[in-house]
């Protein structure tokens, strides 16, 4: 991003508009997908991919990461990697909590059971 010739700036402006159109189209696709009768998990996967694509477009072209030094891209990517890691590390705990939640005996049934004993 050091030098900005007039022609390069014009090209950049055209790219900004193309990215804007893509962002609008992808947002419309996101809204449409939520109305389609597909399994919830499939819809969720589509939405995550679309959101990640939109976020990448903003970071690469509007925040100019595509033109920056690679090390700066690593700095920007680090939080995303750490957050995905955090979610993966939470998953086993969440699974066991959910199992406890869904298999626990309701309080009323538990007290009845104790009364019979």
């Amino acid at each position, binding site marked *: *991003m*050091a030098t*900005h010739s*007039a022609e390069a*700036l014009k090209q*950049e*402006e055209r790219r*900004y*508009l193309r990215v*804007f159109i893509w*962002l*609008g189209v992808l*947002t419309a696709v*996101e*809204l449409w997908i*939520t109305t389609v009768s597909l399994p919830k998990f499939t*819809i*969720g996967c589509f*939405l*995550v991919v*679309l*959101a990640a694509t*939109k*976020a990448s477009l*903003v*970071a690469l072209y*509007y*925040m100019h990461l595509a033109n*920056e*030094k690679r*090390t*700066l891209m690593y*700095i*920007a990517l*680090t*939080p*995303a990697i*750490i*957050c995905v890691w*955090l*979610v993966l590390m*939470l998953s086993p705990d*969440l699974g066991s*909590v*959910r199992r406890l*939640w*869904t298999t626990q005996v309701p309080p009323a049934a538990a007290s009845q059971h104790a009364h019979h004993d």
Partner: protein
Amino acid sequence: MSQAAVADHDFALEPAESPLTPESWGKLGMWVFLAGDAMSFGVLLAGYGALRYFDPTWPPPSSILGIQLTALMTFLLICSSVTMVEALAGIRQGDEAKLRRFLVLTIIGGATFLGLQAYEWNKLIVHEGQSIAKDNFGATFFILTGFHGCHVFGGVVYLSAILGRAVRGVSSAVVTGVTGAAAALGVIGITAKSESALVAFIGAAVAGGIVYGVANAQRGPRGTYSAHSNSEVEIGALYWHFVDLIWILVFTFVYLM
């Protein structure tokens, strides 16, 4: 110590140029700040996902939240990102008028977003009985969108300060008017009761005064930015695009999924 050695010593203490962002150290600083801020949002989103996953009573977001309104808000933020890159492109071409024009549009976009968010919160809190203390949904929703809203407000103030340096006199008052109107929309939208009107106007006046002070304190003579000196605008733009990027994720994870 020879003159060259002294120069080397000084360079080692305070290098003039960042190795990653030769334009300015501030840009590198903003990237590091944004990386930290992204962690905050990442943890909030992970917490939202975790609470939602193990709670079978979690309501479907579409049954409570207005998707059309937030889709409009998303589109608005995307538009404001485009106006921001156009503002930066303008000053890189040495066109100060274009910088000012698109900065004003960006600020109006951010202010309108805040107004719509205030309207949404007012609808949820006053008319639908939602609150931060009601359940996990309310807690995570209001914290996430509120934290993002604070970023948008900060962005509006930040861009107003940049605009304040690019304009002077009457134009500066226009900047104050726009940001004051944003604050008024926000405060009136949230309180929205006749007995709160006075509080709303006082809040708006205080917010407008703060912004006016910031804009004036930062204001320099016309020509502060040029085709060769615009790193402050670029750094402000980075912040604004980050706010847009985060909203793209919040919209998907909180409103659509």
